[in-house]
């Protein structure tokens, strides 16, 4: 198993670690039994732009690096754009992940969707209509 330099960089110096006190969207996926939990905090502006994003992750190097990269990639973007972010795109932005670590990037995608879903709910919208599902990815995810 070999991590790219970019993965190691994002793991060692993760961007956007922490919590947002006045977040208006929070999502958490994974569970401790599987050894990985990711929590994402969003601060979405009135016109639907992600003004700030932070994360907390309990998981391996790849989990932390993908959290960091995923938050970087959606910061300043609209929710629509953010919803287009796939785990593959995150992995590619990190110059690839070892095959056994691809599932950790799924976690980042899911946590983000879950946070956006939470935001819509708080806004009184049905997230299922927008996301195509209710983003209940919080059950222990499966490796692919």
């Amino acid at each position: 198993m070999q991590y790219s330099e970019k993965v190691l960089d994002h793991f060692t110096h993760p961007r956007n670690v922490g919590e947002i006190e006045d977040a208006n969207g929070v999502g958490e996926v994974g569970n401790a039994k599987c050894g990985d939990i990711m929590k994402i905090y969003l601060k979405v502006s009135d016109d639907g732009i992600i003004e700030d994003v932070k994360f907390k992750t309990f998981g391996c190097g790849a989990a932390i690096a993908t959290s960091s990269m995923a938050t970087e990639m959606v910061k300043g973007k609209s929710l629509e754009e953010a919803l287009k972010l796939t785990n593959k795109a995150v992995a590619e932005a990190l110059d690839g992940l070892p095959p056994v670590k691809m599932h950790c990037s799924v976690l980042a995608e899911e946590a983000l969707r879950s946070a956006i879903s939470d935001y819509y709910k708080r806004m009184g919208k049905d997230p299922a209509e927008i996301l195509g599902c209710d983003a209940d990815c919080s059950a222990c995810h499966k490796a692919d």
Partner: protein
Amino acid sequence: MEKRFVYADNAATTPLSEIAFNAMKPWLTEHYGNPSSLYRMGREAKEAINEARKVVGKCLNAAMPVNEKNDYAPGEILFTGGGSQADNLAIRGFMHGPSSKGRKHIITSKIEHHAVLYTCEALEKEGYRVTYLNVDKEGHVDLEQLKNELSEDTALVSVMAANNEIGTIQPLKQISELAHSVGAKFHTDAVQAVGHMHIDVQEMGIDMLSLAGHKFRGPRGTGVLYVKNGIQLEPLVYGGGQERGLVSGTENTAGFIGLAAAMQDACEHLDEKMGYVKKLTDKLVKGIMENIPYSHYTGDPVNRLPGTASFVFEAIEGEGLILRLDNAGVCGSTGSACSTGSLDPSHVLMAIGLPHEIAHGSLRLTLGEQNTEEDVDYVIETVTDVVKTLRSMSPVWEN
């Protein structure tokens, strides 16, 4: 504290000692004769290998052959290409060979190395029956269960001398006596133990014992299976008949001699070296347990390998821990699931009853004679820092 490099993963492999390297060098460069050759350069290599066998045999207190001119004296010491090869030869070779006398049952433990476990699983597929003994919280095998499982069908009991993850030492003599009480033979995987604790195959009633050169500062790709006289095995490697036909192949002369040199050094200075290592390890354990809340010591705190310190830290994951320690110059290892790409944490941590979420935060630090007090101070400080940082990123950590 100034950044330094501290290798604290001596259970994974040890740096080749100068003693071993110097012993190997002439056999790598000048004395290249094939030990099977008739001419002097070949005969000298053969003699040197037999000398190496004697050194190994002496360290283990193996029975020495009566006839000093015997061709492969002492025949009880077989060189292999490593610890795994020794384990495979011992277990598969014994069960397939005549000495198992048609018995079809093996007893081993849940915390063996995969070289033992997967060999046993492969034998199960062939129709052998295998019992995997439970262990208690500190990793001792369940002797009551062993007693109950032993029967006239039990051919072999294979229990490791000391565990590679948590360092717990097993009561070898008691196990061998139980095994012998039903006529079964006793094999022990002593890959982590040899060079780190006293082993006496006669005193302990050991019929077969595996060891690996690179765990006590000898070379990689070398190992030994001690086989008590009279036990007959099926070969691991067929061919030119080297190592009594059980591990054929042109001998790795330099490697075998390096193993013996390292082993002699380790055995002759065992008390002194291991006393020193134990002192360092005790200090390390104390420092980490005092500094880091919600941390747990794993394994037997007393009856353990002198250099092994193993822990779990709540709310963090081990792979990240290792990578950040590495950035700080400290080499360690973890039994976290994430480190191997499997879904489960190490089978050893599961067997001692750790819940998944806690086993994920495991850390093993294993010290060696080359480590210093300063190393230990640095490791304590570094581990404390890294655990703190990772916890600060963890959604499960709530202070």
